[in-house]
């Protein structure tokens, strides 16, 4: 069944990607008219298309509630845990190819050797990738993708976007995802395998989705902020945190020096600095 699919399937992927790009272009175009009024409310520079993004977020949330979550729950119910872990490892191992390519593109040569070793070890000793032998022997997984490579090359992040069915990304994330899909062997082996890959991704996101559901006062903003911070942290390999410290400090520093004086002083002094703070972000 798989073979006859693969020919047309490539075409389908290209269609899907171009469809998404066109979709994004349309939604961006559509926003241009509403953008003016929206920007007055919006405080976040990274998210000029908030009003349409919020609609997409609600749409995706509904799709998840009524379609993805039930299927994912069924998958988790019928599949033994060791199989779930195996499937997770298998797809993760294929991603190592991507990681290695992006290591090289970012000139991280030592890391690329490390990740090649991981891939080789898991593919052979790890029975085609189902067992993550490499982590057990201390070869930890690195997280690299083409979006991070573009970031390293100096491509700006661009606006935050929520894409139907796929969720949060940025303008830089779209070519990033297209490249990574093209470079991942799992993209070429036919629909059933991809469905399993999708199920597996959803099943693994369970914890994070539950956390957002429980903790977020505004799930849209919570998802956006944590997504952007997480991506920024990955792209800078954790070095972004110092700027986050500074960010936090700017906000409360004048308050910090005033704090010893008394709380009432803090109130008056804080407002202007916080304004600067949100601008910087």
């Amino acid at each position, binding site marked *: 069944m798989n073979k006859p699919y693969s020919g047309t399937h490539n075409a389908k992927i290209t269609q899907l990607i171009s469809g998404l790009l066109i979709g994004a272009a349309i939604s961006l175009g559509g926003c241009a008219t509403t953008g003016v009024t929206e920007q007055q409310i919006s405080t976040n520079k990274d998210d000029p298309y908030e009003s349409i993004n919020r609609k997409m977020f609600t749409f995706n949330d509904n799709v998840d509630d009524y379609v993805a979550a039930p299927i994912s729950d069924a998958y988790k119910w019928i599949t033994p845990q060791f199989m779930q872990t195996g499937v997770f490892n298998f797809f993760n191992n294929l991603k190592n190819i991507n990681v290695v390519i992006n290591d090289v593109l970012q000139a991280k040569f030592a890391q690329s050797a490390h990740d090649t070793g991981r891939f080789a070890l898991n593919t052979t000793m790890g029975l085609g990738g189902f067992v993550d032998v490499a982590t057990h022997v201390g070869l930890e997984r690195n997280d690299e993708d083409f979006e991070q490579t573009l970031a390293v090359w100096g491509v700006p992040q661009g606006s935050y976007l929520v894409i139907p069915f796929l969720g949060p990304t940025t303008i830089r994330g779209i070519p990033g995802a297209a490249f990574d899909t093209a470079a991942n062997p799992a993209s070429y082996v036919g629909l059933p395998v991809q469905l399993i890959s999708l199920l597996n991704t959803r099943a693994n996101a369970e914890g994070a989705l539950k956390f957002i559901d429980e903790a977020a006062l505004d799930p849209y*903003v*919570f998802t956006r902020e944590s997504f952007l911070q997480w991506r920024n942290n990955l792209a800078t390999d954790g070095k972004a945190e110092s700027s986050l*410290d500074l960010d936090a400090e700017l906000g409360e520093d004048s308050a910090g020096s005033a704090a010893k004086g008394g709380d009432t002083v803090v109130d008056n002094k804080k407002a202007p600095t916080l304004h600067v703070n949100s601008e910087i972000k």
Partner: protein
Amino acid sequence: MILKKVKLAMVFIACLFAGNAIAQEATGATAKQVVEKFQNELIAVMKEGKQLGYAGRYDKLFEPVSNSHDLTKIARIVVGKESEKLSEEQQQKLIEAFSRFSVASYAHNFKDYSGESFIFDSEEETARGGVVVHSHLVIPDDKPVKFDYMLKEKGNSWRIINIIANGVSDLALKRSEYTAILQREGFDALIAKINEKIDNYSKL
């Protein structure tokens, strides 16, 4: 004239150092000690988490969280410039709700123990007189989670004002959320949402 200025500056710097030393002697708790004390208290509650139940964990964590975090300052930072528009009474209400929410989320998310431990990595002073304590949480059979605590001096003790977990800043995240809700839906909606979340935590 210049010499005089330099002298003045030297005296000033000396005073600053002396002040710091006295403050530390008086309390004895450095930023690192504040963080480690809190982490130990958290792990202790996790260890008896199941027997305590949610309400028990909440009660046991209230003091440790309030004493190690500067919840008043955090609550003011997260509403950002919107705080200008809040009355004194509203600000008090926000601080009170925010404090309960912070303790509740600890009580909910750190509910049991399966061999986790916090490891101290390093400590650094920031340019503006804060301290960042880098540490990570070791979870058996899982990837460790980086916890970076940002502390500021309050009176003569150190208090946590931000936690950055795996590069995601709690303060920045909350500030975006809280200011967005205040702008879109107003103060009462914000308090209602916080209370709803606390209520959910107690039921889960």
